[in-house]
């Protein structure tokens, strides 16, 4: 009787299963079998990140400010351009310029990889019911899984600290919105536009590249925006596996209880996020050709 009570009140111990072990085993297995491939991967990606970083460091600080000013002016208006450029200047003023560029390099590489992987996946999801059915729950899972979780396997797989596992973890974490919005953009193209394309004898490839992708461009840009925002968030967390950049400054401040330093570094990240968000949102709005511009 007592046993039965216990069974109802507490989860029975003999029904628990340790799922951690098989996952560890799988990571170990990947580590063993793909070791060399992974090492090559690390070398290649370190190279790519370095080159991107070189290019980003090659542009002087005032170059960024001027570029940003004119880009924002084109997308919005002068006042917005002044605000965003000032925010960028403040990052330098607070003394986080170099760290921010390093962070930015990792974001750029991650988002590029997301774009290269995410676009075809999003398109195939829009084209095939089966792919859609398989991927939708996976994407949901990827987005709900706590971001920290990606860091550990990234570390173990690449057997190194720093930027390559950070790019890997960031890419996986930031990928879902781009896939989702590419899928959404392609499936939401005006039916009559697609029919017009069909009625003039477009091949599937012509349809995709001349009609569907251009029509979905604004939504895809919104996806890039969301992906970039998630990459910014992840890159800070990636400081925990030794990734250089502003995130490391935040982490150090937390560890040493320096409230001021923590907020200063935090602001730098916020400003970077605001600037990237505004830029990409403006771009998405510019690409939206379906909006009316003054009717009849």
């Amino acid at each position: 009787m007592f046993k039965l009570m216990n069974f109802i009140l507490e989860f029975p111990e003999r029904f628990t299963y340790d799922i951690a072990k098989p996952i560890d085993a799988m990571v170990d297995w990947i580590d063993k079998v793909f070791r060399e491939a992974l090492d090559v991967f690390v070398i290649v990606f370190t190279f790519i990140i370095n080159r991107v970083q070189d290019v980003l460091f090659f542009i002087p600080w005032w170059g960024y400010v001027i570029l940003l000013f004119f880009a924002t002016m084109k997308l919005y208006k002068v006042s917005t351009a002044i605000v965003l450029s000032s925010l960028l200047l403040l990052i330098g003023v607070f003394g986080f310029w170099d760290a921010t560029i390093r962070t930015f390099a990792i974001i750029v590489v991650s988002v590029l990889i997301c774009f290269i992987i995410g676009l075809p996946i999003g398109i195939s999801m829009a084209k095939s019911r089966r792919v859609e059915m398989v991927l939708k729950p996976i994407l949901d899972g990827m987005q709900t899984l706590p971001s920290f979780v990606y860091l550990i396997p990234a570390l173990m797989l690449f057997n190194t600290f720093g930027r390559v596992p950070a790019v890997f973890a960031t890419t996986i974490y930031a990928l879902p919105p781009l896939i989702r919005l590419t899928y959404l953009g392609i499936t939401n193209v005006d039916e009559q536009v697609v029919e017009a394309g069909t009625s003039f004898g477009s091949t599937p490839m012509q349809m995709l590249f001349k009609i569907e992708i251009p029509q979905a461009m604004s939504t895809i840009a919104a996806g890039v925006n969301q992906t970039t925002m998630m990459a910014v968030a992840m890159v800070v967390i990636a400081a925990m596996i030794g990734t250089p950049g502003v995130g490391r400054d935040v982490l150090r401040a937390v560890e040493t209880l320096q409230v001021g330093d923590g907020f200063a570094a935090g602001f730098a990240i916020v400003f970077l996020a605001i600037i990237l968000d505004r830029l990409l949102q403006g771009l998405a709005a510019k690409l939206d050709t379906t909006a009316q511009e003054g009717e009849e």
Partner: protein
Amino acid sequence: MAQGVKVEDLSVIFGSRKQREAAIEMLDDYKPDEIREKTGATVAVKRINLEIEENELFVIVGLSGSGKSSLIRTLNLLNRPATGDVKVGGRSLMDMTKKELRYFRRNDVAMVFQHFGLLSHRTVLGNVEYPLEVQGIEDKERRQRSMEAIELVGLDGWEHHMPNQLSGGMRQRVGLARALTNDPELLLMDEPYSALDPLIRREMQNELLKLEDTMDRTIVFITHDMNEAFRMGDRIALMKDAEIVQLGKPEEFFANPANQYVKDFIADVDKTRILKVRNIMSKLKSVAKLGDDRKETLDFLKENEMDFIYVTDEKRIFLGFLKIEDLQKSKAQKIDNLVHKDETKIYRNLYLQDAWEKLNESTYNLPVVDGKGRLRGVLDYDIVVDALAK
């Protein structure tokens, strides 16, 4: 050369595969409503047979949900028929491979859409060029042909604007120009003017009639507006509940409405303003051509008990007529010198109101010509009186 369209036993059914199969079984014994209730499938078009002639402006009219759009969309296979087939110029669309179908869509057919279906990321020119671009036609020719089409619809000067900078009427002109660039033999227009306001609609109708007048092209035109149908159509098919209620020339609708539904449908249509010469003209059974043999022509007239015959040149331009007496008297080999040059002819897009006077002055039936002066038919005095009397 324009091509005729033949629709045979055509049904369009929407639903899952199982539902469609069940619906086909029930097609002959049940009404569309009942089939939907029992199977869940929607029967949009039910076993329709019709023939559209070359160069005809054929109008399909009906309320929304009558199946008219579903029908026109089978003519370029945007909808796949559940039963039956469509033949354009004798070729069966259902038998076409993917490649043949693509070729057909690229070269022989074009469509204008109710909501225009323009590519909003391309300029007017970019839109009009699209049908040629997918065919891989090189830039220079593409540009030239597109500009011709843009001029034809009166949009020159606007070619570098984006669609969202244009008004509704102008956008539909872009849609029309785009449909004309590949010089299709069959032009499908799916409620092209329904989204436009009435003034612009009238203007666009007249422009289309003017355009249609000078080109060899079969046009299938969909509308829910009976006035528009009568104003545009050589022949009209009235659809209701997936079937054709009545099919015929406009005046036949007035003369013999098939049932009460048709009567109600045409009740508030003013026919003198809508009936045109072309609607009630008779087709010519035979025409003599310049250079024909006198004796053969004479024999032909006798055989068919005719007193005279109209004469055209090789391009069907109307020249005059031949009297049987002259043919009998003459000894010439050819008919060329016997032709009575006659300038009394009538333009086929005239409304009956305006044609009436001319008809009264003439003692003969009047030859009917199009905008290029080509002989299209003959207007019979008695038929006009009949049509107006009713």
